[in-house]
């Protein structure tokens, strides 16, 4: 159990630093809840953050809460919700000053551990990615090798198909040659049994001039003119 709001420093000079520590710490919501209960009940309309900061907004982002007047700090404590808005503003636009606000021990420990884990993860990832090119190169080589092998296999297969076709052609030729030889044999055999007393033939079978029957007798009669 703790009560942050009543740890407010007695020395006014330390007030800005104390509040900055809470703005950059994990307990701001706790402080806001306490201040909401402990502060004087509100009188009048609540101000919004730009009204409270007025022309000091840029200074605040660059130089911290020390650039605010005591009256402005009072307004922040009296309307503690504004502290949450201020925190958001600092997260979004706070300059180097806010980045260098000292962390408490817990936050510093978190940051250190977080970076160690992150660095470890990055280096592990780097190792993984370093193995990727080797794997990729191997895979490329494998694909190229497979391509060559496939091309060679196709070439060999084509060669054997061609050789087989030649063998079949040779077989067909041999078969046709043997058929021709047997036909020759038959022809010679038939010649040897043909009759020897057939009449000798020299001259034409039909001669138009010597055989007038084949010619027309006369010119055809002209047909009468048609009127």
């Amino acid at each position, binding site marked *: 159990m703790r009560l942050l709001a009543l740890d407010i420093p007695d020395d006014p000079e330390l007030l800005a630093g104390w509040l900055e520590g809470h703005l950059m710490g994990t307990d701001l919501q706790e402080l806001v809840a306490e201040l909401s209960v402990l502060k004087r009940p509100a009188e009048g309309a609540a101000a919004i953050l730009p009204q409270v900061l007025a022309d000091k907004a840029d200074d605040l982002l660059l130089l911290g809460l020390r650039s605010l007047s005591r009256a402005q700090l009072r307004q922040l404590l009296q309307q503690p919700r504004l502290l949450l808005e201020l925190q958001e503003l600092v997260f979004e636009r706070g300059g180097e000053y806010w980045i260098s606000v000292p962390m408490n021990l817990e936050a510093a420990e978190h940051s250190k551990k*977080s*970076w160690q884990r*992150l660095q470890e993860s990055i280096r592990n990832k780097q190792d993984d990615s370093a193995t990727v090119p080797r794997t990729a190169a191997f895979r490329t080589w494998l694909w190229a090798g497979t391509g060559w092998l496939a091309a060679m296999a196709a070439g060999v297969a084509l060669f054997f198909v061609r050789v087989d076709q030649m063998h079949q052609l040779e077989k067909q030729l041999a078969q046709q040659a043997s058929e021709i030889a047997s036909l020759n044999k038959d022809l010679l055999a038939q010649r040897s049994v043909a009759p020897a007393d057939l009449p000798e033939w020299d001259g034409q079978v039909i001669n138009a001039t010597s055989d007038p029957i084949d010619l027309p007798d006369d010119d055809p009669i002209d047909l009468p003119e048609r009127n």
Partner: protein
Amino acid sequence: MPSFSDHECLAILTAEPREQAVAEQALATLHDRYSRFLRLRLLRSYPGLRDADLDELCQETWLRVWKHLDCRIRAEAFRSWLFRIGNHLAIDLFRRPRNQRETSWGERDALESRANHVDMIADAEQLQRCVEKMPARLREFVHRLLNLEDDDQIAADMEKKKSRIYQIKSEVKEMLLNCMERGHEAVSA
């Protein structure tokens, strides 16, 4: 370690190809500057987050920065982009079924020392009851203290020495803390 500006860090991290050692330094610089902002912002947006989940979220967000930093991100917009990534990852975490989370939200959560959101509200309610029980003059004293009124003026109005004012402040704090503890004990009894 050389100190890079945000602009230089982003240029190093988005360079193609990037040099590992220098890129790590650039990321370390950004992490050093903004890891606290990211953590606090996530915690503020999602007060129910446990430390382990918060660690996981922050880790994953920074890994995204390392792996997928968009070269179109301007240095001025880097923080917004970082917070947006963290926010999206937090939403993803809440959507994920509990058994798929890297950390379980089991019994050990109850042992966590950091007061969670519900405890904080309960404390505020208890504090309210204790303040109402306090004598009016002490309540007024606290009001004036938090209104940043001058200690000398408060001492004069209370007809006390200034050093006594600081003692009273300490006593009021003690009283309120005791009251809150008793209140919690009464509730738990």
